[in-house]
C-alpha cells in the first residue's frame, strides 16, 4: 500500500492513529481475543494471535468461505470454547462464564440461520429477550402478582421496539409466519430486549430481500448511534463498505488484515486471500 492512496481513505475518528495491521491495539477495546486456537480433528479452523474490538463502533469480520469466521464468531460469543487462548469481554475472561451468562454481561448474538421461535408469537419472542425476569423462577409462576408489573414494563419496552422495527402489525402472529427479512428484524429487536452493550450479528443480510436491506442497515447504524458496539460477520460487501467503521479480514483461520473499509480492497494480503496469490489487479470488493 502506498502513501498517496492511503491519504484519501477515510478513517473513523475512533480509529485515528490505529495502525492498519492484524492485531492492532485499539484505544478502548470492549472485546479482546488473544492466542485463540480451535481445531476440529486435524484441522485448525481458527488460530488468531490477537484481536481487539473497539467500543462503540461497527466492526466487520469478513473473509473467503472456510476462513473460520463463524467458528471465530462462536468463540467470541462463548458459544464455543477454544483449545487455548483467552477472550475477555469488558475485562471478564469468558472461559469462566457459562454461554448463557454472556447475555447477562451485555453481549448478545444473532444467528446466521435466523432462530425465530416459530411457534411463539412475535411479542412472546420479544418478551423472552428481557433478562432478569423474576417470573422465570418456577415457583413464581403460581404467583402472577409477583411478576405482573415487570411483565407490563417489558411488554411496553417490547412494543416500542416492535414499533421501531416496523413489526407492530405482527405483534400477535406466530413468528413462523414472518418473512425471512422480518425474522432478521425480529431477531435483532429481540436481541435489543437484552439491553446489550455489544451486539454480535452473524450474517445479518443473509436471505434478506433488497427492499428490507436498507432498513436493516439503518437499524445497525442506529445501534452504534445509541452507543452499542457492533461486530458482524458478513459476505455482503455493500454492507461492509457502507456501515462498518473497521474491517477485520480472516483467511485460513488467521487474521490477515485490519483497517478502515476503503483500505481493504487495496490490501495485497486480502486480494491474495480472495483470488489467490500472484494476482496483480486491485480487487473491487464493492461488486461482490
Amino acid at each position, binding site marked *: 500500500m502506498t502513501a498517496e492512496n492511503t491519504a484519501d481513505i477515510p478513517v473513523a475518528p475512533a480509529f485515528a492513529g490505529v495502525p492498519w495491521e492484524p492485531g492492532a491495539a485499539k484505544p478502548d477495546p470492549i472485546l479482546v481475543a488473544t492466542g485463540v486456537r480451535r481445531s476440529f480433528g486435524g484441522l485448525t479452523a481458527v488460530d488468531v494471535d490477537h484481536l481487539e474490538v473497539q467500543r462503540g463502533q461497527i466492526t466487520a469480520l469478513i473473509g473467503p468461505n472456510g476462513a473460520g469466521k463463524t467458528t471465530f464468531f462462536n468463540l467470541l*460469543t462463548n*458459544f464455543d470454547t477454544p483449545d487455548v487462548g483467552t477472550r475477555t469481554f469488558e475485562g471478564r475472561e469468558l472461559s469462566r462464564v*457459562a*454461554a*448463557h*451468562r*454472556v*447475555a*447477562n454481561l451485555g453481549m*448478545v*448474538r*444473532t*444467528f446466521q440461520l435466523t*432462530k*425465530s*421461535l*416459530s*411457534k*411463539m408469537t412475535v411479542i*412472546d419472542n420479544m*418478551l*423472552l*429477550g428481557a*433478562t432478569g*425476569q423474576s*417470573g*422465570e*423462577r*418456577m415457583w*413464581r*409462576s*403460581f404467583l*402472577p402478582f409477583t*411478576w405482573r408489573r415487570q*411483565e407490563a414494563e417489558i411488554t411496553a419496552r417490547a412494543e416500542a421496539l416492535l414499533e421501531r422495527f416496523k413489526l407492530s402489525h405482527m405483534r400477535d402472529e*406466530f413468528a*413462523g*409466519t414472518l418473512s425471512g427479512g422480518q425474522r432478521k428484524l425480529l431477531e435483532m429487536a*429481540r*436481541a435489543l*430486549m*437484552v439491553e446489550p452493550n455489544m451486539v454480535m450479528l452473524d450474517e445479518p443480510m443473509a436471505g434478506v430481500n433488497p427492499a428490507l436491506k436498507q432498513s436493516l442497515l439503518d437499524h445497525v447504524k442506529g445501534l452504534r448511534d445509541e452507543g452499542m458496539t457492533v461486530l458482524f460477520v458478513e459476505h455482503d460487501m455493500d454492507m461492509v463498505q457502507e456501515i462498518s467503521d473497521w474491517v477485520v479480514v480472516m483467511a485460513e483461520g488467521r487474521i490477515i488484515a485490519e483497517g478502515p473499509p476503503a483500505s481493504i480492497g487495496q490490501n495485497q494480503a486480502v486480494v491474495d486471500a480472495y483470488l489467490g496469490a500472484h494476482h496483480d489487479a486491485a480487487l473491487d470488493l464493492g461488486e461482490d
Partner: protein
Amino acid sequence: MDWGGIIENTFRGLIGEQFIYFGLAAIGLNMHFGYTGLLNFGQAVFMAAGAYGLSMAVATLGLNFWWGLLLGIVVFPLILAAIMGVPTLRLRADYLAIVTIAASEMFRIIARSPSLDRWTGSSDGLTAFAKTFYEFSPYDTQERYFFGLFIGNQMWVVTVGWVVLALVVGAVYLMMRSPWGRVLKAIREDEDAARSLGKNAYWFKMQALALGGVFGALGGMLRAIGTQSAQPQSFITDVTFFAWVALILGGAAKVGGPVVGAAVLYAILNFTDIFLRNSVADGWMPEWLMTGTQVGQVRFMLIGLALILLAAFRPQGIFGSKEEMALDDR
C-alpha cells in the same frame, strides 16, 4: 348384546381410574415433550418411582403414609430426574430418550430381582401400604356410587384422583402462562436462541424433567394405591407408550390435550373390549375372524388404526391447532 354394560364401561374408561393414572402420566409427558421438547421414553419409571416411593416407605421401611407421600412424590422422582438429566440434558435430545427408556427397564428388572426381595418384594411386589389412604375414605365400602360405576374404595380413589388431576391441570395452566413457561417453549423451539438470550437452558430443562416426572409419579402412586399393590410388571415399557398415545391423541402442548387424550384412549379401549367380547359371545363375530381370547390384542390393533387415521387426518391431535403444526414446515 349388553348395551347397558357397554355404555357403563365406556363411561368408566372416560372418567375412571385408568384415565386418572394415565392422564397424570401424559400431563407429565406434555411438560417434557409438548412444552420443553424433551423426549422421555421412560415415563413408566417415574410412575414406578411414585408407586415404590410410597410402598417401600410404608411396607419396607415402616414409615408412616405421609413420609411415603413425600418419598414417592418428591424425593424419588427428583433423584431419578437428576440421575437421568445431569448427564444427558447438555447433549442432544436423543440421549435423554435412550437413557429414559433404559432407566425404566433397569428399574423394573432390578426391582423384580429375587435378591432384593426384602426391599422391593421382587416380582410379587409390595402390598399393604395404602391403609391410611382408605381410612380417610368418606364412602361406604359396600355401597356403589356415581351412577353405580364405582364401589366405595374405588370411588375414593377416583375422587382423590380427580382432585389431583384438576390441581395439576390448573398448575400447568398457570405455569405455561408465566415467563417460566415462555422460556420452556423457547427451549423447545430453539435451545441456542434461548441461551443466546441469557436463559440457562440446562437448568430449565432439568426443572421441566423433574416436574413432569413428579406428575408421572403422582399417576403411578395413585395406581399403586388403587390396585393396592406395587409390582414391577405394572411398569413395563407399554405403560410409557400408553401415556404417549394419550398425549398424541389429545394434542401436545395444550393444557387439556393429555387429559382428553387419556379419557378418549380408555373410553375406546373399554368400548372395543366389551363390544368385541359381547359380539363373540353372541355369535355376531364369526369364529374364523376372532375368538374371545383374541379380543385383548385386537383392541390394541384398533387403537393403532385410530392413531394411523389420526396421523392422516388430524395430526395435531384433538386439541392441537393445524396452523401451529404447519409452522414446522417453514
